[in-house]
């Protein structure tokens, strides 16, 4: 099956979405009962598309059934990672699926209020989404007593203020609460103690958009797409030196080779592939050979030493300097670290300074080992995975492209001529 269920054409408008069968899955869900909805989503094998790949049905089931008081559903549309631009596309092309997915998820976990946390820079999308919410409300798909079922569910749109870290789910919750956007210590997990202290589920916009079709056509149908550990389709946003960069909805497990050659039209101007960051700016790099042999799903990418992450695929061509590229990542993560964990706060900055020195020809021979040990000291040692997001790429860059780093440190020149910036 190569059907697109997320990036469908001509469904941006609520009437068109409804005409294409939209908002019926919610009605079906309401007639099934909560437990059955969670069971269906669990059986579909849907995994979170925000980066961690956590099974969605299981996440919903963690909300204590007997908890008193409110619960919340949060849609994470903060999309701030370099190379990721899939949620934005989704919100533009299929906003009603996100809203319907939220309503179904809200019903499943017993929430009557949902929040969409949208990246601050997405102002056009925020306006568009506001209109989409208003339209759904007008049709009675959101609000009180939805479709006469007795289920109330409404959605607030909350705009971020520009911090990448607020995409991390607990930082996001603090940000909605008006607090400093920094990740919270877990446990307690949001499902137990989340927004305003109440049980909360945070799901990525893409994850939620997949839910209506699962309800509509069943778990077995959904699981028939993709690979066994990674069912369904995924939005891949491909950037870098390819002929047709962009967002592609493809079954999980698609070979990278197919993604590159068939869908993206191959490398731009006949350039040679050098490396790939297959899961965005936080994923370890694959060499060209590794990438050409890998399938794009959770298990295959993990086995290859990287990860699917958010599905942002950054393609790097021969001639691109890996030291410079890592410097771009370090600058980004240094700027975005919330600063609470000593290894992240100090480590990202140290890595950035080391890389700036290497790039500028001010490096010392020992700098490469210093950088490697700095990255190793950041790995798995922090509250949230932001430190890993720099450390893991850094370790992979250094181990796979060591010669470039050593050349910078010793010869003070960039062997991989070409320069330029990360697209």
């Amino acid at each position, binding site marked *: 099956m190569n059907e697109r269920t997320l990036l469908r054409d001509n469904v941006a408008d609520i009437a068109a979405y409804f005409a294409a069968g939209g908002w019926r899955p919610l009605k079906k869900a309401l007639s099934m009962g909560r437990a059955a909805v969670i069971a269906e989503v669990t059986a579909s094998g849907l995994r979170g598309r925000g980066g961690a790949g956590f099974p969605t049905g299981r996440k919903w089931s963690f909300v204590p059934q007997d908890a008193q008081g409110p619960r919340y559903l949060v849609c994470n549309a903060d999309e701030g990672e370099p190379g990721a631009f899939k949620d934005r596309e989704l919100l533009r092309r299929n906003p009603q699926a996100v809203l319907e997915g939220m309503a179904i998820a809200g019903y499943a976990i017993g929430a009557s209020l949902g929040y969409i946390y949208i990246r601050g820079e997405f102002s056009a999308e925020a306006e568009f989404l506001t209109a989409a919410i208003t339209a759904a409300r007008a049709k009675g798909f959101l609000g009180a007593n939805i479709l006469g079922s007795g289920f109330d569910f409404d959605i607030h749109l909350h705009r971020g203020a520009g911090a990448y870290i607020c995409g991390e789910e607990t930082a996001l919750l603090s940000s909605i609460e008006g607090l400093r956007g920094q990740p919270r210590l877990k446990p307690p997990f949001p499902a137990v103690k989340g927004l305003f202290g109440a049980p909360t589920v945070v799901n990525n916009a893409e994850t939620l958009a997949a839910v209506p079709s699962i309800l509509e056509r069943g778990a077995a149908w959904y699981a028939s797409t993709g690979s066994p550990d990674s069912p369904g389709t995924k939005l891949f946003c491909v950037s870098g030196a390819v002929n047709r960069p962009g967002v592609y909805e493809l079954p999980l497990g698609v070979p990278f080779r197919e993604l590159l050659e068939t869908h993206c039209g191959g490398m731009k101007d006949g350039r040679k592939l050098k490396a790939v960051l297959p899961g965005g700016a936080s994923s370890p790099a694959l060499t060209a050979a590794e990438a050409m042999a890998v399938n794009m799903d959770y298990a295959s990418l993990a086995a290859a030493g990287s990860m699917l992450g958010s599905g942002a695929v950054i393609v790097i061509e021969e001639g691109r300097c890996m030291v410079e590229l890592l410097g771009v990542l370090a600058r980004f993560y240094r700027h975005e670290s*919330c600063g609470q964990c*000593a290894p992240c706060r*100090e480590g*990202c900055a*140290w890595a950035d300074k080391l890389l700036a020195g290497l790039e500028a020809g001010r490096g010392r021979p020992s700098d490469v080992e210093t950088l490697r040990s700095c990255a190793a000291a950041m790995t798995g040692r922090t509250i949230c995975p932001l430190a890993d997001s720099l450390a893991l790429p850094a370790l992979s860059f250094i181990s796979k492209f060591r010669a470039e780093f050593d050349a910078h440190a010793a010869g003070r020149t960039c062997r991989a001529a070409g320069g330029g910036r990360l697209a």
Partner: protein
Amino acid sequence: MPRLTIDGRPVEVKEGATILEAAGLLGITIPRFCHHPALPPAGSCRMCVVEIEGSPKLATSCSTPAAEGMKVSTSSPAVKAARRDVLEFLLLNHPLDCPICDQAGECSLQDYYMEHSCAKSRFPAELKEPRQKRRLIGPHLVLDNERCVLCTRCVRFCDEVTRTSELFVSGRSDASFIDIREGKALDNGYSLNLADICPVGALTSREFRFRQRAWFLEKTPVTCLGCATGCRAEAHHAGGEIYRMVPAPGAENAWLCDRGRLTYRPLRAGDRLKKGFIKNGYIDLEPAVREAAARLAGEPGAAVLGSPWLSVEDNAALAALARALGTGNYCFSFTAESGIKDGILVNKDPAPNTAGAAEAAPTGGLDLGELNRRIAAGEIKALITEARAAAFIKGRLPDGFKLIVFATNRSEIPAGAYATLPYASYFETPGTFVNYQGRRGVTGPVVPPPEGVPPLAETAAALAAALKGDGA
């Protein structure tokens, strides 16, 4: 009650106890910066990590509950490496100005570096981020952001304990720094606790800074006499001088209020009384005692008023004086509303011994109302008490009334006092106090009194002897 092993030693802990607490029971101190037992966990410094068998990542012992069957190592190679790494990270931007830092000798960063690292710096000094030094942030504190390790203990204290939230982390990433909200001063009545809990020399006390090195200080347990709560404290002193007061280690009061902490200050103040004081002039203690005895013996209806600011022993000495005078005009019973008034430590009753004073004269005597009535009616024409207790006498003193007080400092002397006798404070002489819950505590001595200043009981006994001498 989970049972686990830490470094191979079994331990059983209460449900919900953390690994750090469990280790503490075994006498294993896990190094930490952000953890403080009386504050909610932050889990951010990553210094307290331990290895749990079967768990791929190191865990923060400050925030991970001890669980049944856990096998924890606090000294595995991975743990040791992680500590070294944290220390290296924290020292990257540190100014390394230990020789001029007041925290030296009691600095966690310094101590842990010696214990867990001793590695050479790999970071060029010219790449250090400049930060603000020596910023006055309140009447009692100086902030040095260069030395701050961003443990946020200070922020959490102001958020959770005093709930005044003056401090916050400004900026983010390595540009983060501790800042104070615009227009606020850090003056919440408990601010000096921050100098204690700051693990490094970033927050230092203006009272203590540069006056004494930590390693020269001796530590003596005392009871804080700042109010009826009677917090357990520790006086730090050297060479006969007290330099600071801190909460006693392990005391149920994790904190001390600023006022209580500074109760030692009058000891060395310029107005400290070392002699007697009659009308407007100093006079040696011995003639002062003779004069006071003469007045008490000479005036009809001389009275003795105890004091809730004095120890059980000194009140007893005043009661003995009343017996020597042969008067029924005495009062040792005080009533005061008591209880914690700010939700933290400070008591509604400002006096430390309201409960204990009554022990001096369990029966007989007058209540305060009757004492005041007799003074107003002219039936009592002389009275001896302690300076602050004189405030229990209401209204203007009748002409010719002879008020005799014990005081430690001239500023305490009430208006209209005829004679004042000095006495040794409870930092200088032992005393028993009974707090608002009935808990007895003996305090002092920490330092010697000024030369020639005896404890109050001694002077009261001399007065009693002088009275007998007159009578004989």
